[in-house]
């Protein structure tokens, strides 16, 4: 079975995030107030073939930790998505 999966990668707490900080600084000028703690990261969508949801998630977690993030500076988490892209194939 095919499962849509989303992996999100964020910088670990304590690691400086200049991109998030830059966005946060720019917000008030654009009229957005009350937005704080902006952290920039990456997201990956994919389709994973597995026997069931649990094993799809397991596979995704392994992928997230081994490849999609650098544990020295990043945290990763995987979840089953509502709509992965490209199911049409």
């Amino acid at each position, binding site marked *: 079975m095919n499962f849509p999966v989303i992996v999100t990668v964020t910088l670990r707490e304590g690691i400086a995030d200049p991109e998030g900080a830059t966005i946060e600084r*720019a917000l008030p*000028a654009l009229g957005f107030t009350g937005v704080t703690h902006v952290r920039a990261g990456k997201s990956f969508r994919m389709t994973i073939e597995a026997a069931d949801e649990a094993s799809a998630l397991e596979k995704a977690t392994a992928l997230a930790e081994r490849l999609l993030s650098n544990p020295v500076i990043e945290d990763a988490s995987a979840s089953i998505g509502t709509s992965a892209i490209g199911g*049409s*194939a």
Partner: protein
Amino acid sequence: MSSAPEPLHRALGLTDSELDEIRSVLRRDPNPLELALYGVMWSEHCSYKSSRIHLKRLPTEAPHVLVGPGENAGVIDAGDGIAVAIRIESHNHPSAIEPYQGAATGVGGILRDVFTMGARPLALMDPLFFGELTDARQRWLVEGVVSGISGYGNSVGVPTIGGELTFDECYSSNPLVNVLCAGALPTDRLVLGIASGVGNLAVLLGSSTGRDGIGGVSVLASAGFSGEDGAESLDDAKRPSVQVGDPYEEKRLIEACLELLDRGLVVGIQDLGGAGLVCATSETAARGGVGMDVDITAVPLREEGMQPFEIMTSESQERMLAIITPEHWPTVAQLCAKWEVRASVVGHVVEPSVDAEGEPFGMLRIRRGFDGEILAEVPASSLADEAPLYDRPRRRPESLDAVHADDPTNDEPEGSPNEDLLDLLIDPAWVYRQYDSQLFLNTVVGPGRDAALLRLAGPGLPISERGIALSTDSNPRWCALDPRVGTALTVAESVANLACVGATAKAVVNCLNFGNPEHPEVMWQLSESIDGMTEACNGLGLPVIGGNVSLYNESGGNDIDPTPVVGLLGVVDSLIAPPPGWAWNEGDSLVLVGTRTAAGEVPFPLGGSRWATRRGRRGGNVPPFDATTLVPTIAFVTKEIAAICAGSRSDVTAVHDVGAGGLATALAEMAASTGIGVEVAQLTGHGELFAEFPGRFAMATSNVDAFIARAVVAGVPVVALGTVGGSSLKIGTAIDLKVGDIENRRRHALEDALTSTD
């Protein structure tokens, strides 16, 4: 939305008379696929139908020209068995909607034009034009475009060694992003985009084909032409035609193609640019006078349900078409596999057909399988070379007389000229610091000075002591006042830039950015500009070896100012020491080489100068172009600097041409670059501070008598202006500024403007 269904040919951008023309070529009605092929190939962008009759006037020949206009890139013989290929192109419209990808794919496209010739790309340049930075959208565009060029150029591994940066209201809705690429090859490896040899294979290399950039042709999807599967949805038609660049794919493609060429495995090669596969197959077949069968099913696709017209016209990036002999196919496939470059045989070169008069011609056939159904069948050259040419109406703008009369030359400065000068200073370092400008260990003079200077060296090239110099220049302010003289002066400015690094100019490429050619005023500007370039190139003995025309740069009915961009390539015969820069030494004498005033004691006009433009004074006249005084001055400076590059001792310590912003700006830049001031005793008038007339040079010398004597012998006007030293820039009674303040203002001008938040 209009309700009356538009005839298909018009929806595809073809006029009724163009449809008639197609009918007479085919001697029948075209089918929708064929119509789509003509639609893209006969577009202004691909066919140059409005500009071609004018471009023919440009001088294109010189003994060192190996390939002139018409090929993917122009090529000159640079000596020592090395040829240099160069090309410039625009990517204006894509950059306006997605600045990062628009600029990035512009870089990708120009690189392919150059390595198509067998040359390894060694340098990029990026003339950029935006609206004023007080507008937040312009800041977004600048950041996007610059990071797109940086992101693609750095990653693909070609240094960006210069460019231009112009801000003017007229580019607000229509930014210009031009990119130039130069590369080098062993002269004996030159290849052309020709398909020859019946039985040869056309191999598509690189990326898979998606629906990228199927701009206008996508009407076919909504016009009910759906092939047999009818799978397309309305979404397909609305799909944005933005292309995404992949520098990693391009890098592997460059290495694979150069290795194919090195090993003699290809007969001809052609990049896929505008109009994609139909352009590459029809051009190679037309040049070779042979036919070509294309198997639509052999093209690797990235998306499902793609129809033949989409496959043939897609502008998916990072693809090349190589023509090879069948026995080389296994080796080619293996080599491509090593570089992880996809390779598929999509075409067969076939015997020419014979027309009604018994003349042979190459037929392009699009088929479903090489032996399968024929979906389209048209003479290749009718697509590639036989688009109708137009001599569109031209008219000198009626307003021009009034514009000329509104002359700022005698305007008195209001307030302090010190402030005027500080306002003119802008260091583009914020831009070029983002570009790798050093890769290949060739960059002797990088971005930020008058011209870039590179060692003529690179992987696989014969050893040489030579250098090549490059400059891009434009002056839309001049060209708005007088497109003919303005363009001629732009060429002069470029040649002067090259002289500052000791290089002798060898060849010109140009990118002609203009408004809507259906406006007679725009056609007049274009024609005048081409005449001006012709006049300057003839006067300076320069061939034009390539170019690009970008029309329809307008928005809301307003055309941009005429913006011809000149790219100039020059050669330094011996480059073993760096040329002097802008940095003079305490105690040097400052001299001005070149005429101080226009004819007699008349000051140079200030029309089109940056000084006047900043004050909102956009009228007046530009100075005349005069090759007879320019040529000896340029030759003198070139010789002085070339001697230093060749390792000779010299009393010349600094040189800078007087360009945009005039003499005051040139001196301020020199002072800022070294932290040492200068005192100039007197001036002929405030106009002399800011007048812009190319072919004049601010130079510093440690032996003013010897220097002046040499200039006099060469018959070149020269005058000692003052002495270098101290910590201020003082010019007569007009300017008195601390060098530190100049440096500070100049260095931060761009970043301050980009980070302002209003």
